[in-house]
């Protein structure tokens, strides 16, 4: 009898969640492009619907290709399991809908992707869920915003777009002390750069569309549960479910309760499911994640240093630079690199001038694609104040640190000298 083996991150990127099947032995993960799955018999069908059997019914709830993606990302995040959904937005909304009841409250970082701020502020309001936004950099701000109705803490490990780093460890402890789960969006880090569960986070969500997929071809989101939070007194998971004849998810599924409920109630009912083909493409992304992320962060640091030294650049906000206020946090949580998305500001005397110069820069760039996404293998550029964050009010823009002079880059895998050349020629051309 040999000692049981714990495999490394890269091995699990390639193998976790997929055992070649007996029938075909297919080495690549097969795409099960099927809406539905044939039951063995009527008893089997009934038991699947009653959750007394594991198995596939309909691809809105589970799918064999998607299951490989789910188990693989759970393994990489050191989670107990995962649920893949249509997008990153669906991942966070599914988490909220699963854990919260009308009247419950969230305390959220104000350093979030603009679309998330909008979802939390407006869409959750329609469901009678209240959100308190706090400046995430001071723990007291979180503590002061907690009320007896607070059921969830929410933040991004690398805040979009300013690149502030969430101090996960004390925040998770604060949550535990108040019996409130901490949900962390780790999209910009990927499990290669940071695994928030290792620092005490309860649940991790991702827009897998970004670095996980890594090629800008598929939308997807994923929710990973640590399995470590005590949900025994958490009403939505501990109380009898009307949707399953009084089933108590926590009693029956223990450390799988949150993910089971998210799957068989929330996503079953919202329909925010992922396509099996997208799952396949995201799996392909995961198989090279470490190799890509190493180069992404290497190129990002080089570009950030170049811009930092450029006379037409007022500031660079990249936690990988030693003068960034969160550099120490980045070294703690992201020792391999602070991601590949960051912002910089053009030197300009007035906000109107800054906006104009930002436009000129984007018009002159030859290699950076101007679009609303991050985490592609190609380098990307955008002006957040007029695009991704444009639904936000002036006050929200200030709170999120989004100024008119700000330009956001997602640094890709091109030859780094070419990226520097492109930025240099574009900056030189600005009048």
């Amino acid at each position: 009898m040999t000692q049981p083996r714990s495999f490394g991150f890269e091995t699990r990127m390639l193998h976790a969640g997929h055992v070649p099947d007996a029938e075909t032995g297919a080495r690549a993960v097969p795409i099960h492009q099927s809406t539905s799955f044939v039951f063995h018999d009527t008893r089997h069908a009934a038991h699947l619907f009653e959750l007394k059997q594991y198995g596939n019914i309909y691809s809105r709830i589970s799918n064999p290709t998607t299951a490989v993606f789910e188990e693989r990302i759970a393994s990489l995040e050191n989670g107990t399991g995962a649920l893949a959904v249509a997008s990153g937005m669906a991942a966070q909304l599914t988490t909220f809908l699963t854990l919260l009841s009308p009247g419950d409250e969230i305390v959220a970082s104000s350093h979030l992707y603009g679309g998330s701020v909008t979802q939390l502020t407006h869409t959750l309001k329609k469901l009678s869920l209240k959100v308190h936004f706090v400046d995430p950099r001071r723990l007291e701000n979180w503590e002061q915003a907690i009320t007896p109705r607070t059921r969830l803490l929410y933040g991004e490990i690398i805040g979009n777009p300013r690149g502030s780093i969430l101090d996960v460890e004390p925040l998770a402890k604060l949550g535990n002390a108040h019996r409130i789960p901490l949900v962390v969006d780790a999209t910009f880090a990927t499990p290669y750069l940071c695994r928030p569960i290792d620092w005490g986070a309860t649940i991790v969500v991702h827009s897998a569309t970004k670095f996980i997929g890594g090629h800008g071809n598929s939308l997807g989101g994923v929710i990973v549960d640590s399995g470590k939070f005590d949900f025994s007194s958490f009403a939505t998971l501990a109380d009898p479910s009307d949707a399953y004849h009084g089933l108590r998810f926590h009693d029956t599924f223990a450390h799988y309760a949150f993910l089971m409920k998210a799957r068989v109630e929330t996503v079953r009912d919202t329909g925010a499911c992922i396509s099996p083909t997208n799952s396949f493409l995201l799996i392909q992304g995961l198989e090279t994640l470490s190799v890509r992320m190493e180069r992404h962060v290497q190129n990002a640091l080089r570009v950030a240093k170049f811009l930092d030294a450029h006379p037409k650049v007022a500031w660079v906000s990249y936690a990988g630079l030693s003068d960034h206020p969160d550099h120490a946090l980045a070294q703690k949580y992201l020792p391999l690199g602070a991601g590949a998305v960051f912002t910089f500001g053009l030197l300009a005397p007035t906000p109107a001038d800054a906006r104009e110069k930002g436009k000129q820069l984007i018009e002159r760039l030859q290699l950076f694609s101007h679009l609303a996404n991050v985490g592609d293998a190609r380098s990307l550029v955008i002006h957040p104040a007029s695009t991704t964050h444009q639904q936000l009010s002036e006050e929200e823009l200030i709170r999120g640190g989004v100024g008119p002079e700000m330009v956001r880059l997602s640094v890709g895998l091109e030859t780094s000298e070419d990226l520097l050349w492109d930025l240099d020629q574009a900056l030189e051309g600005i009048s």
Partner: protein
Amino acid sequence: MTASCAIRLNSTLTAEQKALFQSPDQIRNVLATARTIAIVGLSTEPQKASHFVASYLQDAGYRIVPVNPRGGVILGETVYGNLAEIPFAVDVVDVFRPSPDVDVLAATAIQIGAKVLWQQLRINNIAAATHASEAGLVSIIDACIKMEHGRYSGGLHTVGMNTEIVTARRLRSPGSAF
């Protein structure tokens, strides 16, 4: 049986206790060889965890033997008041009772010649487990027999859970993962 992957998640045990009472090799061997499983504390209520486990084990081809002082019939099987009343051999005694109750159950399991004493999730009477081990039984603690079966048979995987199994070997036939 091929080499096992380490199973590290969702356990409250120390590494030393895990090696004794949650060994993947032992668990796979129990699941592969057991046929009859007595379920102590099986509820009549269909939505209780014990009922889920029992019905799952039936579907997986095991014979379950309900043990509950209330008697009657559950899932088509006669309910026995205690382990000693079961008139045939059982391979596994699967316990859904609070940890202090396991002392007596361990003694009875040894007495009736059971091969395995399995304490379900969050039930972790180490003294009783050690007693059973010393008498030659396999002792498993703080683990769910349904989840462990699902881990190796592929069921847990279908619902996106982390089975912690990593292998490039092709499955030979359904169930060969044990």
